[in-house]
């Protein structure tokens, strides 16, 4: 793979230090995401900027990532999904990302349109996450667009891909990861994992298939019981441990807001300390923290890995 390093994210990955990335959702207004980016500054190396998450129309992730990066200095990982754009649109967006100074792209298939608020939309999926990864790789490293036409100033950025450690059956997912790695993925960010045994099973498979691409494991410290419950119920391949859920549920009884916050933090820190200790024994190069709106937990988690 490419030796050149364009982003802080890739620099950190190559440094061997444990890497932290966060997540920002532009949603229907950019204000909150910009505020969140400011809060995350210094806590994480880079932040993903989501692209129509769960197929709800949100502010375009390319524009949002650019604006967040410009206004806050937070390096962005621009998420790009195949659900809404054909190969021409994807290619032009990646070239645009290049001139806007974005340095990382996460190539995604994208949730099906019927999951969101616009279920009558015509889904696209002209490319998939693998062919999108290859398209970006070819743009950057061969200076050629989707049609094979040479472009004078290729974008300088890194392409990453997603992986699902908790997917069942896991084998097709692992072989697909291998395919994405061969297509040019330079890093992986995984779906949320809670259970250490899921990590073990996943990394065993990764090793067996000789997937050497750096992997950041997705974690979701839950700011509330509701947030954790949502993941457990609605996100495929994610099981939240019942004890963790129960402890969070118990915090709902605490009347005092500050005390409740403290207790939620305690539950998360206790759980994730164990989890991160376990993560130290895996080849994971970092963590992708998807806890939107919960930055105060990050310093505590980082202490575990220091």
């Amino acid at each position, binding site marked *: 793979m490419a030796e050149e390093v364009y982003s802080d994210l890739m620099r950190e990955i190559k440094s061997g230090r444990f890497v932290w990335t966060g997540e920002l959702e532009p949603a229907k207004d950019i204000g909150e995401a910009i505020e969140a980016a400011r809060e995350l500054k210094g806590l994480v190396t880079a932040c993903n900027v989501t692209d129509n998450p769960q197929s709800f129309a949100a502010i375009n992730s390319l524009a949002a990532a650019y604006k967040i990066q410009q206004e806050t200095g937070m390096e962005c990982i621009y998420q790009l999904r195949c659900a809404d754009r054909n190969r021409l649109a994807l290619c032009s967006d990646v070239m645009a990302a290049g001139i806007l100074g974005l340095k990382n792209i996460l190539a995604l298939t994208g949730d*099906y349109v019927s999951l969101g608020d616009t279920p009558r939309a015509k889904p696209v999926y*002209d490319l998939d996450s693998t062919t999108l990864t290859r398209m970006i790789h070819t743009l950057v490293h061969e200076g050629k667009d989707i049609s094979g036409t040479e472009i004078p100033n290729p974008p300088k950025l890194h392409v990453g891909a997603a992986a699902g450690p908790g*997917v069942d059956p896991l*084998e097709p*997912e692992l*072989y697909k990861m291998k395919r994405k790695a061969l297509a040019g993925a330079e890093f992986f960010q995984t779906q949320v994992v809670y259970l250490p045994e899921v990590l073990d099973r996943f990394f065993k498979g990764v090793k067996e298939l000789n997937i050497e691409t750096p992997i950041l494991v997705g974690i979701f410290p839950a700011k509330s019981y509701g947030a954790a419950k949502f993941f457990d119920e609605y996100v*495929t391949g994610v099981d939240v441990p019942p004890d963790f859920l129960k402890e969070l549920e118990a915090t709902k009884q605490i009347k005092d807001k500050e005390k409740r916050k403290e207790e939620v933090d305690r539950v998360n820190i206790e759980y994730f300390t164990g989890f991160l200790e376990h993560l130290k024994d895996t080849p994971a190069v970092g963590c992708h923290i998807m806890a939107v709106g919960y930055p105060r937990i990050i310093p505590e988690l980082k202490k575990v890995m220091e």
Partner: protein
Amino acid sequence: MIAQEQKPIEEILGYLDGKRKIVAVGCGGCATFYHTGDKKAVKEMAERLRKEGKEVTEVILPLGVSACEIDMSSKFLEKNRKAIEDADAVLVMSCGDGVQVVCEYIDNKIGVTKPVVPANDALGLVGGGPTKFKETCQSCGQCELGKTAGICPLTSCGKGLMNGPCGGVREDGKCEVDPEKDCAWVKIYERMEKMGELDKFTEMRAPHAWSKAKRPRLFTIEEPVKPVRTILASLPSYLTLLGGPEYEMLMLF
């Protein structure tokens, strides 16, 4: 075959509102298999329309005569030329192909321009039977089955991915889009694994070439099939299968 179901009668009656003389054209092809254009369906439709005070001419196409194969179906339309010329509307009980082929014939060969309306909704190219059918091919014009263990992901994967599975595959190997359906890419994986071809699974398949799906597609063959002669020529093949359900099919001819 093209799967189909009859439209709600209210919708059909809406198209025929204010029109008294109706010609109801059946179909002896796919629509006969799905009971949407066979003799019984045409007769039932005619009865229903008569109850609405309409005057109905039935044009029944026998098994083997598809509405869309105009060389054959036109013979039955010609027999009813007068009724068509006098009609206020023509109701075609086939897929959309049949409706449009009949419409074009009436325009160009019978020489009258009439409202031609559909009785059915076509639901895709399907295979299987006798009672359960599955859409497995979308006639994309560039078959990919040689790269995908004989399962078409463009049709069978909810997202039509050439390189799946997506991250949404459900715990039991079901589809993110519809939990009732299998994830096509899990199935492709399983077949490749059994055949010892997992190396092909990790190969990236290029984005599908949609250039041959440029619509509408036109197609020409050098020599036309002569339906009656073809049926007769195939009889010996059917005779080799005597005794099974194929025998019953033979009897239909």
